[in-house]
């Protein structure tokens, strides 16, 4: 992992919903191999940034570069194929599928077999299927999920969050984007999550983290971007951001 390289670059993002400017000229960079946190008060536009990156809706203006290639106009599944995986703000797993199946869906981006292969049960497809299963089981075990054959919807919140992260990791991403992974977790669970994230980061996966838990953010991130009302108000290492006047004002409301 080389130091100083940038994996994701957002330049001048603008998005308006009706009369509301949700993103106003937002630019920031995500350094390769680091943990970057995207923070800000509710309604600051953090999730909108994630949705724009993953092609959930088109931007009005601006450009998103991933490893130097533009993501503009790409559909969501193409973005995943490029190497970006994400989780959702309120856990969104596939509740009526098993944990293993959930994670196996995550392998979609890196596998090829299609309708014809599946219908005819061709050997290439069977080989791929075995590989998918193995890869998924590995990810599941690494995240310490014990019940791989239960329905994902019947797990506890922590369990579901783990499944969601496992599903994202199964696509072998270079950039993992997590939308408030710690919300609803207890102190202990958050500490476990922090360890898991650091571990994932050490394997060379870049992380973009949206989070409200400041202890978690300041504890593990290398770089922090602060949004407020759709604008970027600060950008830098955690220590300097913490002292930034505009950030304090936004958070304390003065």
């Amino acid at each position, binding site marked *: 992992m080389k130091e100083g390289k940038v994996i994701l670059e957002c330049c001048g993002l603008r998005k308006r*919903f009706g009369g509301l400017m949700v993103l106003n000229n937002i630019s920031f960079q995500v350094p390769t191999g680091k943990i970057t946190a995207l923070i800000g008060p509710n309604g600051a536009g953090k999730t909108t940034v994630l*949705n724009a990156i993953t092609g959930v*809706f088109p931007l009005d203006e601006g450009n998103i570069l991933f490893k130097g290639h533009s993501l503009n106009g790409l559909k969501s599944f193409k973005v995943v194929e490029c190497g970006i995986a994400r989780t959702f703000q309120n856990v969104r797993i596939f509740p009526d599928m098993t944990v293993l199946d959930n994670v196996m869906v995550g392998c979609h981006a890196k596998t090829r077999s299609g309708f014809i292969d599946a219908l005819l049960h061709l050997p290439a497809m069977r080989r791929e299927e075995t590989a998918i299963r193995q890869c998924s089981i590995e990810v599941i075990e690494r995240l310490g999920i014990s019940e791989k054959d239960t329905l994902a919807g019947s797990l506890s919140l922590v369990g579901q969050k783990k499944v969601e992260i496992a599903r994202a990791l199964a696509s072998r991403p270079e950039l993992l984007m997590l939308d408030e992974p710690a919300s609803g977790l207890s102190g202990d669970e958050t500490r476990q999550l922090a360890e898991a994230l650091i571990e994932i980061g050490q394997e060379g996966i870049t992380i973009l983290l949206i989070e409200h838990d400041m202890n978690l953010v300041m504890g593990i991130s290398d770089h922090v971007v602060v949004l407020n009302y759709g604008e970027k108000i600060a950008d830098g290492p955690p220590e300097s951001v913490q002292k930034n006047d505009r950030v304090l004002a936004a958070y304390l409301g003065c």
Partner: protein
Amino acid sequence: MTTPAQLWQFLLSGLTTGSIYALIAIGFSVIHNATGIVNFAQGEFVMLGAMTMITFSRDLGLPMPAAFAASVLAVAAIGIGLERGPLRNARSRVVLILVMITVGASIFIRGVSMIIWGKMPLSLPPFSGDTPISFLSAAVMPQSLWIFGITLCAVIILHYFFKHTMLGKAMRAVAANRRAARLSGISVDRIVFFSFALSSALGGMAGIIITPITTMSYDAGVMLGLKGFSAAVLGGYGSMAGAIIGGLTLGVLETAGAGLLSSHYKDAIAFLVLLFVLFFRPAGFFGMTKVQRL
């Protein structure tokens, strides 16, 4: 070749059937706005309106106005029954399942109607004679005037209702944002109930006024429902103005198409319009593109 007089004639008869489509389309919109589902039994309400009218006026000998009111009420009751019965008690809240329940209901109503009223098309006498009136060199059936008049009245009353009454405003609130409406104390249940009553009554009324011109049979509901839906989609699904303009446009297109191209394929025209709109402008011509919610 077609003369201007013929075109004028097409326009008039197109507007007549178009008014009917508009009424059906409004019915679709009202239910869609309250519940988010497409009610496939809408066409069946139209058929039922005509059939109950035939029973009330011909078989029971009620005078026209009384039979008219009784039939509209009867169809409204059936609409309410559909909502209070199968839809409300459905175990699943998935929209597509609810939509399919209305499909089942429409087939059921069709089957029952076949047993009650038989397979042959039935007719009603025109409300006021059948001597055509000459209007700017085109012949107009008095029934057409009734259709225009009743549709116009209905539209004016609805407009007043949605703009100036509490219930009407509550219905618009539910359409705009169900959750916010509930939080501000509107009983969504009551709105849904009333939407079904209103839209089935409108459908029933449409069936009663068109039957003297076209006759009605137990299986005509699907076709009428689909044309009403096409009209609603053409105008922009969920909007009342769209429903009216869509209905009238579709009526004229259909009559003109049947007159100028081929009368055999008259019924196909509505669906070609529907498919065309869905392909090229799914939001309709007067509707707004909805922002996709996440």
